[in-house]
């Protein structure tokens, strides 16, 4: 793995294109949380030609639904949910400017080809280290869909969130290369 570099969100295609699968990064800046239900609502709103409350250009979307924050804390435990469930909604979002996604698990071929076309990256946070990730969130507010509870659309300010590049904008995947090297079944 390459050595850790810092990245600021939102970011441009050019910055995304410098990242390679396997790179470790520390992400700071402003990102958004949206998971299953928020994706559904966003795509329904877009289909009705409504404007979203999130600026998608250069945006990074974190597939996450946090635990409630304790009083005095900006955030409760937070971590990635499995990304494939967002695949059906992702193509449109990539076309509209999303440059980064944070999740866990494989993506569909369609998503990967759209990432290549639009110069986007897929970043991984380790699943199940949510107490540690919570401490990288500096501020958080609900942007929309508050009634969805943990699934609301949120804006987060993050500092030095530890992530790994899972799929880069050339389509290289850490999930393919890692297991291929350590597997003993030739799969």
């Amino acid at each position, binding site marked *: *793995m390459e050595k850790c570099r810092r990245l600021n969100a939102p970011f441009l295609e050019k910055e995304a294109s410098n990242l390679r699968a*396997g790179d470790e990064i520390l992400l700071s800046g402003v990102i958004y949380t949206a998971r299953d*239900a928020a994706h559904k609502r966003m795509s329904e709103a877009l289909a009705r030609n409504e404007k979203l409350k999130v600026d998608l250009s250069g945006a990074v979307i974190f597939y*996450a*639904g*946090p*635990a*409630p*924050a*304790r009083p005095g*804390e900006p955030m*409760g*435990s*937070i*971590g990635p*949910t*499995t990304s*494939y469930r967002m695949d059906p909604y992702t193509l449109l979002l990539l076309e509209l400017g999303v440059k980064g996604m944070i999740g*866990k*698990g*494989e993506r569909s071929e369609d998503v990967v080809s759209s990432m290549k076309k639009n110069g986007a990256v897929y970043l*991984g946070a*380790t*699943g*199940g*280290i*949510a*107490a*540690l990730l*919570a*401490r990288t969130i500096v501020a958080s507010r609900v942007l929309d869909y508050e009634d*969805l*509870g*943990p*699934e609301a659309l949120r804006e987060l300010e993050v500092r030095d969130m*530890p992530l*790994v590049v899972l799929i880069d904008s050339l389509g290289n995947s*850490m*999930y393919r*290369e*890692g*297991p*291929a*090297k*350590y*597997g*003993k*079944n030739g*799969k």
Partner: protein
Amino acid sequence: MRQVPAEQVTETVERLFIEANYHLPPDMVSVLEKGEREEQNPVAKSVFRTILENRRVASEGKFPLCQDCGMAVVFLDMGQETAVTGGNLENAVNEGVRRAYDKGYLRKSIVGEPLFERKNTGDNTPAILHVRVVPGERVAITVAPKGAGSENMSALAMLSPAAGPEGVERFVIETVRKAGPNPCPPIVVGVGVGSDFEGVAELAKRALLRPAESSSSHPRYAALEAELLRKINDLGIGAAGYGGTVTALGVNIEWAPTHIACMPVAVNLCCHANRHCSAEI
């Protein structure tokens, strides 16, 4: 007849769910420490270290282990010589879940109706409640908050008896291979063999309650567990799916009698946040 107030059931369930969501059981900590020592891929090794660090931070009681605080699965062994008084047992359990997820700042992840509305119930109820009536006066409660990442990758097959142990092996390994990084490896693999369609799924879930490093008391099943663990780790999926030599921390098989024509097998995967906690009333 012994009497147990419903309120006591509620309080116990509440305490156990908070405890389970903040404190990883000792058997999981020990297999994670062992995994960290044995893992050969440096990137995956550092995932193990992060998981152990996460567990330490969670145990301070401010942030739960995982943001997915799970479906509230409750196993209740009810001594037949004991009566629950002052309330209904199921309501008492659900009230315990409600209080735990509120007071413990745990995420509420249950939708009331699964297909059309999918509206969050707001309090993580209803619980999935498995009650067994047992001899004596004992009331034993085990709670197991179960995350969806690994639950979604679980599978069930009605194999033909002719498929034999090889058939079971193939199905288990194929399930883990297909799951890849999704269930947050390193995982614990709960396997049920026998019973019927719904019974085998419960066996697999109960298998996850056994300590990750324990072996079946039946020598042939114990040997199958060891064989499966080796073959799963040969898949190379590794911690977080980043590639590595430790994908599973344990394989636990529970079995039960079945029909002459049946050989059901269920695989319930659980992430490294294999949370469970027990108490007796």
